[in-house]
């Protein structure tokens, strides 16, 4: 039996993809030239004032509703005071005691079980800029500041500490990411920093109810790094406790290159943020009418969608998981099925060749030229025996490249199957004559030899002959002689 129980809570920060920042009209574009996405307000210039972006509040409310939260009817913003160069005003406008959303939950499957993690709160705050140091600039004498991200709306989603392994924490984070993507409030791109998962982790003796001292881990750019960091931290804390030591409450940085966590330096961990109500903003009042307006605009959430795929389309749980990994993928599948294709065939194509092509092109499905209509038409062409499955693969490759419809590709390239028996028979006779050895082998009882002959016929027809017909005719011709 395990000696310690792991207890993990998560703070997830997700950048909202609103058109403008939380308190000004600047639009934020990832990768823009430094400080191009700024104005006097998000730079915290003297005399400027914030004005709340209603859309950002709407996005937060969407997230709250999608995660079963109570939406606070009377909410407010507060100043969180600390000095850091990436924070233009040296206070962050955040929410302290009246967050927009409270008491939610996120449900997900983990190790074949249904898990529900309670959320403490979801609140809205402004993002900070970033420092650019010598590693980037090559200038060790000074640092530069890029405030493009300063003021971008951030959602902070705080879970209760009721996750019990690093793997489960990852499953939870994936579930949150999926929901945020599904409801269209964040693109959740970890590499670009629009999704940041910060676990707090502690160990306690098995059976104990009391929480141990926790550490927080920052600086992870992928789920793999997050997992590595938590696994390392579990071991580190276990080792300390085994040796009778005490875990120190601190914030740790994970270094992906060494695979270790280390106490954070530089950014002073202020214990006292001196929160107080932001006097430059008025209270946020959310009336019930607005909520009833927003509620129906929420799409079907991933968990519900998975269940529907399983129930209505007879898709396996594993495949349903794959197909709902992103909203766009699930939409693609749904639409292809609605175009009249058989769900299992659709699923197999999406999970097989479509994914292969997407991966090779490092592309997301919503950016591909192939649409559900393409896939549906392709499957139709196979079903009505216009093309073989093998030809279909090349047609898909072509459609992926050009965006042309499968029927047009088949027509242009003359890829229709040869179903004319006399035409096939003529070719079969030629092949048998050209390869007397294998033909004789077949007649001598080496039935496997037919494979070679089929291959030769297909080759001669450039794959267009209907394979079943080729088989039938070959068998007949060989046995007749």
């Amino acid at each position, binding site marked *: 039996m395990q000696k310690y129980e792991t207890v993990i809570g998560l703070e997830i920060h997700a950048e909202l993809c609103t058109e403008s920042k939380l308190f000004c009209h600047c639009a934020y574009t990832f990768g823009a030239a430094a400080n191009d996405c700024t104005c006097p307000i998000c730079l915290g210039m003297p005399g400027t004032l*914030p004005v709340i972006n209603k859309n950002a509040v709407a996005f937060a409310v969407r997230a709250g509703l999608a995660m079963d939260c109570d939406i606070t009817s009377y909410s407010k913003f507060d100043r969180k005071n600390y000095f850091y160069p990436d924070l233009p005003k040296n206070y962050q406008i955040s929410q302290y005691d009246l967050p927009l959303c409270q008491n939610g939950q996120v449900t997900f499957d983990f190790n074949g079980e249904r898990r529900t993690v309670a959320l403490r709160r979801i609140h809205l705050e402004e993002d900070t800029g970033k420092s650019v140091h010598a590693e980037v600039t090559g200038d060790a004498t000074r640092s530069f500041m890029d405030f493009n991200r300063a003021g971008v709306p951030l959602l902070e989603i705080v879970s209760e500490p009721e996750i019990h392994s690093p793997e489960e924490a990852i499953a939870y984070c994936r579930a949150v990411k999926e929901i945020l993507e599904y409801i269209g409030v964040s693109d959740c791109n970890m590499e670009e920093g629009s999704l940041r998962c910060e676990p707090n982790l502690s160990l306690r003796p098995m059976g104990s109810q009391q929480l141990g001292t926790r550490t927080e881990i920052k600086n992870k750019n992928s789920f793999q790094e997050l997992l590595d960091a938590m696994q390392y931290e579990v071991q580190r804390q276990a080792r300390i406790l085994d040796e009778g030591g005490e875990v120190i409450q601190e914030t740790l940085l994970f270094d992906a290159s060494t695979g270790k966590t280390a106490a954070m330096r530089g950014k002073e961990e202020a214990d006292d943020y001196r929160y107080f109500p932001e006097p430059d903003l008025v209270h946020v009042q959310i009336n019930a009418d607005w909520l009833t307006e927003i509620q129906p605009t929420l799409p079907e959430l991933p968990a519900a969608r998975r269940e529907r795929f399983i129930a209505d389309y007879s898709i396996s749980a594993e495949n349903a998981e794959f197909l709902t990994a992103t909203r766009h993928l699930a939409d693609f599948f749904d639409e292809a099925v609605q175009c009249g294709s058989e769900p299992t065939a659709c699923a197999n194509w999406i999970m097989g060749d479509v994914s292969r092509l997407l991966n090779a092109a490092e592309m997301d499905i919503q950016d591909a030229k192939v649409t559900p209509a393409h896939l549906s038409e392709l499957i139709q062409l196979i079903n009505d025996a216009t093309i073989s499955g093998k030809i279909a693969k090349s047609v898909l490759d072509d459609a992926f490249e050009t965006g042309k419809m499968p029927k047009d590709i088949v027509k242009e390239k003359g890829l229709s199957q040869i179903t004319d028996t006399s035409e096939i028979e003529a070719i079969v006779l030629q092949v048998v004559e050209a390869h007397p050895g294998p033909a004789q082998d077949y007649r001598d009882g080496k039935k496997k030899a037919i494979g070679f002959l089929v291959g030769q016929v297909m080759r001669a027809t450039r794959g267009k002959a209907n394979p079943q017909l080729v088989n039938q005719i070959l068998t007949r011709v060989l046995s007749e002689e």
Partner: protein
Amino acid sequence: MPHYELTAHALHEKLKARDITAVELTESVYSRVAAVEPHVKGYLTLTRERALQQASAADAGFQKGDEMPSLAGIPIAIKDVICTKGVRTTCASKILSNFVPPYDATVMEKLHQQGIVMLGKTNMDEFAMGSSTENSAYQVTHNPWALETIPGGSSGGSAAVVAADAAVCSLGSDTGGSIRQPAALCGVVGMKPTYGRVSRYGLIAFASSLDQIGPFSKDVTDCALLLNAICGRDAMDSTSVDVPVPDFTKSLINDVKGLKIGVPKEYFAQGLEAEVSDTVHAAIAVLESLGASVEEISLPHTEYAIATYYIIAPAEASANLARYDGVRYGYRTENPSDLLTMYKKTRSEGFGQEVKRRIMLGTFALSAGYQDAYYKKAQKARTLIKSDFDAAFQEVDVIATPTSPTPAFKIGERTADPLQMYLSDVMTTPASHAGLPGISIPCGFVKRGLPVGLQLLAAPFAEERLLRVAYTFEQNTEHHRQKPNLRVEL
């Protein structure tokens, strides 16, 4: 009478009649500035070249016979806490010594729409923290009525230049009395509008929940004209309130019959100079003689106003002033060895003593373990002070009090004793807490020749009532016509 002595409304008639051009007027005011500034020292920056361009533009309009706004071509001074595009805005602080805003405050945009002539930026207590304008990092402004005395503060420069006829009118800002108190001490009209009446966008924040921009003028009519120009909801300031802006000149009615004036007994308690008390009582008697009824009222939580103010304002200021760190703009210490040193030295060198004192007070009041005892308790007191006024305005239309417990005091007299200095705001901070509109008008003089101000307060957004009472008083008295006898060589 030289042009520079006239009011905006009188000058508007002359400009309209082409008796004078805006350029001539501007030159006239600048000549007065040149004569009195060596003594008064009310300006931090003069923008003569720009002003003459603005004056020419106004003249072009008058020449064409266009219907010109009331403030077109009128030379106006702006407190250096209000951001002016392309013109250095320092808050009288070393830390913003090189700060040139790339944007105008909303009030500046509104004034420029009127076609005003901006004379320059006026001196103040650093970041509006003070009651005497002695906390400026640059210079001490002198009260034109007695050069050895202070002009009040924090908008001391804006009050002094109007009193000295070195500006026709001006804008200041009032957080705990920073318009009303210097107006009283300099013998001019000064109004703090209702919190939310005027946009704070571009007003460099001291205490966000209290700050409000307002006018200084030579009479109540000009005050109304300036209010017309600057009031109104602004999408850039969510705390500005969407209430209709009336034509304030419509309230300039010489009649207070039937009006109920409340005189709070707490304002006539210890610390009030006897001569000031007498002068204010005499002024109230004038209003009574004109048909107003006067009754004594009680605002029982008045005594907590100063303590409450000196917790809430510094608390907000401690956050508002955190941005002056040398990273993005303003002063930065030379060659700091690391980030923390840069922060510490920039702020130690850039801020004056009073600003540092208040940042520390505010930081303390918000700190964990003290926030309940100080900041939160102060918020409760603020609510009580506000409810005092709510109750009072059920009974009376206007409240009349002295604006300041004393007339102008000597330069240096209170600098060593911050608490004594803070008591200068005892009459003005209560209305600030409640967000009320308040006006100070000249109501007489003490024997040593210093002006005394009468403060009138009304319910939120009842500026019209204040203007009416102030106008009636003005029409029936001569105090506002008195000019300081500045011994200057012209």
